[in-house]
């Protein structure tokens, strides 16, 4: 890969990505997704398996807000007992979080 462009002060590194779980809704995970800089944050929603896949694809470490912790863990536990809808081959590992 080519050399990254010369570092400018404060230019966000787009390869740095984070995920912060803010809540759940049924089987969906609500989360903030950040690229490079906390200013660049967007609120997203994905079904739980898609969420895991998304974090893996983006190499984004995830944190869970305390208020969402219990609900998120419930979702996580349930995902072991309910059949997951149509996982695509090569999808993310469930063990990410």
């Amino acid at each position, binding site marked *: 890969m080519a050399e990254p*462009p010369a570092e*400018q002060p*404060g*230019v*966000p590194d*787009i390869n740095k990505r984070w995920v912060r779980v803010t809540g759940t*809704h*049924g089987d*969906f995970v609500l989360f903030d*997704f950040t*690229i*490079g*800089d906390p*200013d*660049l*944050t*967007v*609120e*997203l*929603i*994905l*079904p739980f398996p*898609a969420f895991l896949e*998304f974090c893996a*694809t983006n190499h984004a470490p995830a944190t869970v807000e305390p208020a969402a912790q219990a609900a998120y863990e419930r979702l996580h536990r349930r995902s072991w007992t309910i059949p997951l*809808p*149509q996982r695509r081959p090569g999808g993310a590992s469930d063990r990410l979080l």
Partner: protein
Amino acid sequence: MSIADKSTAKPRKLGLKERYAHLTRGLGWETTYQPMSKVFPFTDYEGIKIHDWDKWQDPFRLTMDSYWKFQAEKERKLYAVIDSFAQNNGHLNITDARYVNAIKLFLTGVSPLEYSAHRGYAHVGRHFVGAGPRIACQMQAIDELRHAQTQIHTISHYNKFFDGLHDARHMHDHVWYLSVPKSFFEDACSAGPFEFLTAISFSFEYVLTSLLFVPFMSGAAYNGDMATVTFGFSAQSDEARHMTLGLEIIKFMLEQDEGNVPIVQRWIDKWFWRGYRLLTIVAMMMDYMLPKRVMSWAEAWEIYFEQGGGALFEDLSRYGIRMPKYHEVASKEKGRLSHEVWATFYNYTQATAFHTWIPEKDELDWLSAKYPETFDQLYRPRFEYWKEQSDQGKRFYNNVLPQLCVTCQIPMIFTEPDDPKTICFRSTLYKGERYHFCSDGCKDIFLYEPEKYIQSWLPVHQIYQGNCGGATVPEVLNWYHMSLGNDNMDYQGSPDETLWNEWTADRHKSAI
């Protein structure tokens, strides 16, 4: 110690609220050599009575000074990210080139609305007597302009590689299905300032916008479209401010005068229905256009309207405001909307500035699972039949233009609320002429202000009147600035698909 002692002890600093009031309220004054009614001609005619403009609670106390600072910083980072994606060929990271069709629809259908919103807010920002709402509107006008710009800049990267993105502004003003979003905003912008804010700030930005932005942004992110996610950064962080303006204008009108209540209710009814009809394309985007899907339209409707909106209208009922009229029709339609609309674009793919396709088998299965009560019973056989025919070289085209609804301008494709097999026909006579509607919601809106809607620029009728470049498909496409065989027709066999296959073939090769 008494309160009086304290206040004389030392002159206290102004609070943020007071300081903001001083920074804004001074911008309004009583005119002397011209009557106020001449300087502000739009404040009374809608029937809204305001007794005390100072009762306006600034929902978001942001000064221009800090606004510039904050937005400039955000924008700087944003454009750095956009550049970075362009340099890294970000378009190669999307799941499939089919996805870009959602972006084409967004750029031609939604981004121009950001610009319309800019114009609308700039206009009403001039016409409110109160300095509070005036400042809020002016700030939002700038936001909307920034949103339009950011979206155009971001999507311009895709324009280098894919068809259909080359002339969004022209298309928005000409292409048949884009008259739906265009007329929606022109209806709002040609209303008075109070109706405009009810329409856009409240009904659209507050009640319905989550249905557009959250699932759309999630779909973009999940499908690897980080370019679109970048304009999400810009837009979503402003949304919170816009939503508070929507709530404040409603509270303000409802509290200022009892007579405002029925007017506001009628506007909420009207703009709920108009907004809901506008979101039809979002339903289709979510269920059909994302290679990897986020949630079904029905699920989004349940989460964002039935539950989220339910809580809001429960609170509004304290003012005597009820749920928007025909909300129950929208809920009855949630299992059909996206299917009816995608089938419509499949009917008229020859005149559509994005590609259409029959969903793959796993996609049909997803739809069957998400719509257990409607999809297999009503729509799956249709798509399977079309697929079968297409495979035999007999692709279905609808060669006759459809009847349109005079109010929402969508083809009259929607079915009876209680009978999904029968098209819903509604009509009325006004001054001896017939007018047709897709629903009771659209008919009610017409009946209240017929003079406004008898001017509707209905694309089908305009073609027949000879105002759209000619009478043949190539002539009309030419007038649309659409390139036959490139911008329109099926994804299968399109230049987009060919190019994508080449790229991904290269990718596979270089991986080995």
